[in-house]
């Protein structure tokens, strides 16, 4: 019976039934009909999952990102990045990567970063002769840095599923975020080396751009400083960022009443998309627990003498395949209940696994058919997404190189959290 309901869920997924229903229908059917669990238990568990204290930071950070989007913060970061690195080979591309990374430190929302930074950078890049498919995929790929640089919504979800403190997961993403940024910058500089470069800005121009960006650049210190000093919880830090963003937008007269109400509506939508999956994926976790799937897999690993590296390779293949078809949040909920016990059995640090999986699942945001990052970036410059896909393979290679680095150098993920 379990196998037939699992097959039903796969069919529902393939015919494009919303993923939360796929989770809900398949797992609830197994839980109620096969495992004889009462529906009241399932509902209680899904509410427990949705109302975890740590998760409430997600809607607040999403709101902060939306306020930044409407409040002009992104523009200051773009200007600063252009003055600092615009003269390098592929300067505009490098500036977009750097601006995305910096924006990630204030909002943690991948799609908000694509819209905020991409809207300003992408048309300029196209005008300067950068190939349109490359520009689209670069914007989507650069936004992945936001999934690693704290504050990051993926880190919050990972923490809620693994009980690793958010402060540690946030810290784990910093160095890997810079590694990913470095890989992207290197590729952009090589790929665009023949394109015309901007003139090097003098120091007064750079200082002027920096001075204008100071109110935005201080925000990450407020957020992370508040969390690591123990003064603020992640939700309070997120709330601080949101209110700070509102004040900044109002002082600069960029944030309008319409922008504020749009931010609220957009936050309600994004929160719903994420949390309704969390609510229904809880049913799936229950099914996994009752069917003892992780224990079976651990036995298989012990039996076949599978080591950590082989495990990483197998998990990487799973993430790449799942990421191609499913979004980041469902992948976390689908895989972590199974992979976390396996990591513990193989003595793999969960933070290392977090930065490894985030990179690879993020690559899935670039690969069709489910690639919301590319679709969003393509919409910014009205490029048909199917034309943009030709630029994707190089970025998949970058994602795999990034993942290999994370496997080879676990301290990239574990060193900074150990300092706090």
């Amino acid at each position, binding site marked *: 019976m379990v196998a037939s309901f699992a097959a039903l869920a796969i069919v529902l997924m393939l015919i494009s039934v919303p993923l939360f229903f796929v989770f809900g229908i398949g797992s609830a059917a197994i839980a109620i009909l096969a495992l004889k669990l009462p529906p009241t238990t399932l*509902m209680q568990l899904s509410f427990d999952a949705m109302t975890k204290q740590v*998760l409430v930071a997600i809607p607040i950070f999403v709101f902060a990102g939306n306020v930044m989007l409407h409040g002009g913060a992104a523009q200051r970061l773009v200007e600063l990045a252009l003055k600092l690195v615009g003269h390098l080979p592929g300067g505009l591309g490098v500036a977009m990567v750097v601006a995305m990374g910096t924006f990630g430190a204030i909002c943690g929302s991948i799609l908000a970063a694509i819209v905020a930074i991409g809207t300003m950078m992408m048309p300029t890049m196209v005008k300067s002769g950068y190939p349109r498919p490359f520009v689209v995929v670069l914007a989507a790929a650069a936004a992945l840095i936001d999934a690693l640089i704290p504050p990051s919504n993926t880190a919050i979800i990972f923490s809620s599923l693994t009980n690793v403190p958010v402060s540690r997961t946030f810290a784990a993403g910093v160095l890997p975020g810079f590694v990913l940024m470095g890989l992207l910058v290197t590729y952009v500089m090589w790929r665009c080396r023949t394109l015309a470069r901007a003139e090097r800005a003098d120091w007064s121009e750079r200082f002027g751009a920096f001075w204008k960006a100071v109110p935005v650049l201080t925000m990450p210190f407020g957020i992370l400083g508040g969390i690591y000093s123990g003064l603020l919880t992640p*939700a309070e830090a997120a709330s601080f960022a*949101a209110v700070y963003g509102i004040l900044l937008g109002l002082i600069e007269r960029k944030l309008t009443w319409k922008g504020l109400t749009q931010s609220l509506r957009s936050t309600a939508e994004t929160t719903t*998309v994420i949390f309704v999956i969390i609510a229904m994926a809880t049913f799936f976790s229950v099914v996994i627990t009752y069917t003892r799937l992780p224990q079976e897999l651990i036995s298989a690993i012990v039996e076949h003498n599978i080591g950590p590296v082989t495990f990483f390779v197998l998990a990487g293949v799973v993430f790449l395949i799942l990421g191609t078809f499913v979004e980041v949040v469902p992948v976390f909920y689908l895989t972590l209940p199974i992979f976390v016990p396996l990591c513990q059995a193989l003595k793999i640090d969960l933070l290392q696994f977090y930065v490894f999986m985030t990179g690879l699942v993020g690559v899935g945001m670039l690969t069709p058919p489910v690639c919301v990052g590319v679709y969003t970036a393509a919409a910014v410059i009205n490029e048909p997404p199917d034309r943009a896909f030709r630029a994707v393979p190089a970025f998949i290679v970058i994602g795999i190189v990034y993942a290999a680095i994370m496997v080879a150098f676990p301290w990239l993920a574990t060193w900074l959290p150990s300092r706090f």
Partner: protein
Amino acid sequence: MRGALAAYRRLNDWLQAAVVAFTGFVVLVIVVAPLVAAIVRYYTGQGYDWLAEMPPQLVPWVVFPMMGVLLRHDRHISVDIAPYLLSGRAYTLLRALVLAISLAACIVFGWYGAESVAFFRRLGQLSTTEIEFELWYLYISYPVGFALAANFCLEALLHTLAGQPAPGKIDPELGGLA
């Protein structure tokens, strides 16, 4: 028939506006409450747990009512292989099938939700938060949300079957999924 569908759409447009306004207000409370908690704690040296406990308890009141609005506009995450491959009549049929499945699921989940709420109400179970409340106040968002979602699904299904365009897409004011 066409007139009835138009009236149904207008009714649901109004309902959607009410849901969006309500959830937007709840989001505002969720955003502001933690900062108020921190400020009060900093200046008075005394923390009020209910200020920290309230935002997570409000999340279901954003998620479940808004779920139907997103179903109406086809804004939930799904695996888009089939729509990518299909077009014209085949795509319309697939969309009708997906909406019919979603409608059936909403009714089943809504029914189970209502039964569960009745059960918890009989049980009289209280929250463990600083301000105690009966838990069914929280759980009732579940059947309410699925009832709204069933209504929006039915509307989208009827329009799809009548060959009329589905309700317009919401402005792509993107928040951030990850």
